[in-house]
């Protein structure tokens, strides 16, 4: 299935882009992360949370969503 992946803050510095579309097979978030870690050098050393359709999820969560976001530590305010 087709998903949109969004990158923010220092994660976007690693990926050199703010968003992309990827064609992935069904599975867990962790499987998507494996793909991204091999695609983007240095990503595995970064601290981030993952949101699926704007809700935080874990690596064990099943990919269902149209929109995945990689979110570095929040620093608003």
């Amino acid at each position, binding site marked *: 299935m087709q998903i949109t992946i969004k990158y*923010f*803050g220092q994660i976007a510095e690693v990926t050199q882009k703010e968003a992309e579309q990827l064609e992935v097979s069904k599975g867990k978030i962790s499987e998507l992360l494996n793909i991204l870690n091999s695609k983007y050098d240095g990503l595995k050393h970064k601290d981030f949370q993952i949101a699926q359709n*704007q809700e935080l999820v874990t690596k064990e969560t099943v990919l269902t969503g149209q929109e995945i976001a990689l*979110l570095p*530590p*929040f*620093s*608003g*305010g």
Partner: protein
Amino acid sequence: MKDKKPKNVFKEGPISSDFIGNSIYKHQTKTSIGAHNIFLGQVRADEIDGKTVTAIEYTAYEDMANQKFHEIRERAFEKFDLTCMHIYHSLGTVKAGEICLFVFVSSPRRKVVFEALEYIVEALKSDVPVFGKEMFEDESHQWKVNS
């Protein structure tokens, strides 16, 4: 005054003192209010390894952030007897000394506003996907971490 759908809390650039003054002025028609409490976040010119922060550049996952702000609002109205609540956060560049966050709560009674304001500010620091990039005078940067 509950809102049913998320508002946009983001403003491009710093939040001006005029905007804040005007927001206070608008509440003077609400004569059930006895106490207001306002939190303002201001960008500090921190010195880090000999370099001084000149500005913070804010970005956000805007849709999720507005949804989270909305959830914080809803929870705060459930927990506390508030008459009004307003939240504004900057996006883009906010220079040292300028204001990047404005949270404004009002209630008939003062005890409520103290509890509510701290609850809201702590929740938004921890739950809302906003990212601050601290810019130094030599155009290098580092990513801000909330403490």
